[in-house]
């Protein structure tokens, strides 16, 4: 049961129940839809640029499990106000947290030390390989929105 408790931490349950930035951005500069064909979960991610190479606003909508919803919610909080390049590096780091068995929090670059705690809440999915895609779907969708692609999938 420990692994379950680690997966469903209070922070995740809270974001799952009360997702932040759960809305559409009408004048988004980028938006994409992400599908997880395995379970039918779907997220829409909206990105608004601030005109100075940064992310002015990031929001999402969709229907998904607690992991997908919480991951999307935490992602929007982490991304707002960041530079594009920095956002992509954060995605790489998040990906490592979710998938890399050898991931060592001590190796985290200095620039993201402050974000580490909020990334690590998702580390529990590593023990649930079938659920990794739930955690990464919002981020893939965000990357697709940045790249001007309309859709992303976990496949």
């Amino acid at each position, binding site marked *: *049961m420990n692994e*379950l408790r680690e997966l469903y931490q209070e922070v995740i349950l809270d974001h799952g129940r009360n997702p932040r930035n759960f809305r559409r951005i009408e004048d988004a500069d980028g938006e994409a839809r992400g599908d997880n064909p395995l379970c039918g979960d779907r997220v829409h991610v909206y990105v608004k640029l601030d005109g100075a190479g940064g992310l002015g606003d990031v929001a999402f909508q969709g229907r998904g499990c607690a992991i997908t919803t919480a991951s999307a919610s935490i992602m929007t909080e982490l991304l707002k106000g960041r530079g594009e390049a920095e956002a992509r590096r954060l995605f790489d780091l998040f990906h490592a947290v979710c998938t890399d068995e050898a991931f060592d929090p001590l190796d985290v670059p200095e620039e993201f030390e402050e974000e580490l705690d909020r990334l690590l809440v998702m580390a529990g999915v590593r023990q649930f390989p079938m659920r990794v895609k739930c955690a990464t779907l919002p981020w893939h969708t965000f990357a697709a929105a940045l790249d001007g692609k309309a859709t992303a999938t976990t496949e």
Partner: protein
Amino acid sequence: MSPDSTPTLRPNYDVLAIREDFPILAREVFGKPLVYLDTGASAQKPRQVIRAMTQVMEETYSNVHRGVHFLSQACTDQFEAARETVARFIGAREADEVVWTRGATEAINLVAAAWGRANVGPGDRIVISTLEHHSNIVPWQLLRDGTGAELAVIPVDDAGEVDLDAYAALLADGRAKLVSVTHVSNSIGTVLPIAEMARMAHEKGALFMVDGCQAAPHMAVDVQALDVDFYCFSGHKTYGPTGIGALWGRKELLDAMPPYQGGGEMIAHVTFEKSTFKAAPHKFEAGTPAIVEAVGLGAALDYIEAIGRDAILAHETEVAEYARERLAAVPGVSVIGHARERGAIVSFTMDQAHPHDIGTIVDRAGVAVRAGHHCAFPVMERFDVGATARASFGLYNMKSEVDRLVEALDEVAEIFGR
């Protein structure tokens, strides 16, 4: 229900003995005895099937219909005997009406491609229902897109039953060429009134095809009594191996259809100018077939028949109805689909938790359920759920396993709230 018709007293149905036949049921998952409630996705295999397949490979294996040597004859005999077993199992008039396929998906694609290309044109209509698995939707969309035909869908009511008035309306103008529906819904368990629907289709000149995936393993099927035109099912859902399934079609329909794929095994004669084809069913079986798997499927059907499909149906119904009752009593749980006639499938959602999270949590308690859309997006949409958790039962399941599921849901409530 009168006391003597209650199905609880069935001394002949020895579920513990049956479970002994399935080696995998003895294993543990995360330190707990496995509770396998995902038979709708694929059934576990009894020793009898494993042994039959091993026997072929160890003793009689060779290619079929090819050689003059001893093994080729022995193996062909077994392979064709399995076809006869399928024919008996579904009440076909003769074994030549049974075409081996990789499964139900290939069977439906075969009819859509071979029968469809020869018989469907612009303005014609193919009718399916809201309850279909994607494999009984997409092949017809491909046919529609290739021919200019129309694809129409019979709606279902809130209980999950097909709307027969709407169905009659789709047949009324006589443009429907073929109706293809599932016998039992894989997502919410509805049993469709196949005999009645087939009669309605025939009255208006349409053929009738049935996707029997979720019916063949659970109830007696008689294609002649149902008076349908095509019927198909998958081996792996009937306690047999993967990679094999069967399409049954009326002889005269199969004879009139062009081939599906070309290759060896299906030809009578080949020159570069022209090839002639064998008669059905071989016309539809290009290439070396799944020989070992066909024999395995034959063994699986023999196994089912030895227990008896009426006994299986009574047992599974009892377990599934118990599951409906117990699940409905769990706070926050809604059972989706309340058709009067229903199979051994119970789909549910829980207010507090997404089906995917339910699936993960009960898995850690050793309970395997399916969580997702069950390859039936339109059903999810109809009932306005993104996904459901689904417990589907087989001939080896027990009420005590339902109890284990319900206990595991308590852990879901523990995490997500009550």
